[in-house]
């Protein structure tokens, strides 16, 4: 397993101003996130998990500090370069599945791939492979309306994985799901980290996930309080049931 640092964040600071009141959400935060691991960002609601995810993934500019992702200074890139960086290296899984109602599962996965100009055949091949990886090959021609919540989230994960990102960010990926679906989802994320050496950073306050993470970062008041490594977290093997 690779021990290389995928993301190195230093002195991150972020505040939000609402009206005349500025709230510091993240203050002087340092963190290194490793490739090939599932890192869980846990902590009470409102402690800044999602905000940190947005800063590390190039979606929200921090007020202070620097983020090096895969050796690139993320917040020194211009808008277009940042977008290209996201296109080539970053995958996202959100709490809401955000699938297009009109597209079937394969098309959902193909859509972001199509911006990589891989050609129709390769795009289709990768999309099918990604659906297979999340155990949904048999659902590939179904639209979101015909899929369960857990299946929808797995399609969303396949969509994020299909472009083979080195960095995968997931914000509360299981909180809309029942515990078995949630278990399946976290296993898929975990195996993606192992199989492809992907850095998976997952924000969640779901305590059930803690046991499944390689590493748990506990946040409170905009800082990382504890940093625990779990040497051999269990991985469920059968997701395709």
């Amino acid at each position, binding site marked *: 397993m690779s021990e290389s640092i995928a993301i190195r964040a230093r002195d991150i600071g972020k505040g939000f101003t609402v009206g005349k009141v500025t709230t510091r959400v993240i203050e002087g935060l340092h963190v290194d996130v490793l490739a090939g691991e599932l890192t869980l960002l846990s902590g009470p609601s409102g402690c800044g998990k*999602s*905000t940190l*995810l*947005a800063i590390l*993934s190039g*979606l*929200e500019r921090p007020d202070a500090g620097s983020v090096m992702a895969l050796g690139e200074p993320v917040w020194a890139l211009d808008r*277009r370069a940042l*977008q*290209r960086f*996201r*296109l*080539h290296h*970053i*995958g*996202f899984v*959100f709490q*809401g599945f*955000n*699938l*297009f*109602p*009109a*597209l079937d599962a394969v*098309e959902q996965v*193909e*859509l*972001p791939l*199509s*911006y990589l100009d891989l050609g*129709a055949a390769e795009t289709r091949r990768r999309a099918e492979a990604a659906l297979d990886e999340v155990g949904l090959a048999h659902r590939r021609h179904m*639209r979101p309306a015909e899929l369960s919540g857990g299946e929808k989230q797995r399609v969303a994960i396949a*969509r*994020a994985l299909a*472009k083979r990102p080195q960095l995968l960010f997931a*914000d509360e990926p299981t909180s809309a799901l029942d515990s078995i679906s949630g278990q399946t989802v976290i296993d898929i994320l975990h195996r993606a980290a192992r199989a492809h050496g992907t850095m998976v950073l997952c924000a969640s306050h779901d305590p059930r996930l803690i046991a499944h993470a390689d590493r748990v970062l506990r946040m409170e008041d905009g800082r990382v309080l504890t940093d625990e490594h779990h040497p051999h977290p269990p991985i469920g093997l059968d997701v395709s049931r």
Partner: protein
Amino acid sequence: MVALARKTLVYEWRRYLPASLAVAFSGMLLLVQLALVFGIFDSAAVYINASRGQIWAGYPGTQSIDLGRSIPRDAEVHLLMNPQVAQVEPFQWVNGDWRGSRALGSVSVFVSGIDPAATGLVFARAIPPALRARLNEPGAIIVDRADLPKLGIAVGQSGILNGQRVYLVGTTGGLRALGGVNIVTSLATAERLNAGGDLRPAYYVARLRDPARAEAVAAQLDPHGRLRRYAVWTAPTLAARTVHYWLFETGAGLGVVFMSLVVFLVGTVITSQTLMGAVAGSISEYATLNALGASHRALSRVVMEQAGWVGVAGLAGGGILSALVLALAHSQDVPVGITLPGIAACATLVMGITMLSGMLAVRTLRNADPARLLR
């Protein structure tokens, strides 16, 4: 490439239907009002368009055919002296006062006195020779069948025109005038109806040996000079003067422009609102695509493509609607005039509505901020 725009349109057609309908109705309104206005203008120039002959001589400065005044009889001789002219025919114009049945009171009418000969030029396109020959009977008149209710008589019955008894010998189509009823009589009958008035005709119409040379011959025949007592135009020129007159002097042209603007505005508001609603409804999907690396430009293309398809569907629907409405109008003898440039102008405006709406909807995409997906 996943056809996101088209698949979404097909799958969520209900959501886009109002936009397509707005576009269809806008197109229909634009085309129908244009067709009606053209139809009205055509009927203002019906005396010219329904006649053969390429040259018209009339009172200098006449702005519209219905504003003609008597011109000297030597104009006829002058026209005939040109070797290009094969035939000259007077056209008498008399304002009339009609009394048919008592219930309808009096109706003001335009009396056209024409040569009833089979070779006659005026109204040759509207009145078949057999019917035309019946104008030889003293007091015989012909009207457009759509004007019968206004006159209150049927074929074979009689009425009082300028105090004289006249008989309706037949009806035809394509004679409707603007703002009154056209009554066609022979020159002799017209003269009788104009007793006490100027007996000289308002126009002379000439047929040329070579119709293609009308422009040049008209220029030759026009007496020029400030003191000329009549002027010479080609038939299309006089028709265009008439249309121009109605378009600008009556305010109808401004009305068309104004109505088109209103239709454009209303169409754009409804279409853009619908498209914006559709974009707003999928905003987190768009934001997710953006997070995964799709550029705003790529997303804008999806929205513009949707607008384009909405426009195409609307154009097709508008075409069908217009055809139905215009067919109905035609069957009711409502004058409609459709020209290819008119259709092209309407189609352009309609696509303008959808493209502008698309651009407005693209602005909604600005809300597709992927950072908002992380909360």
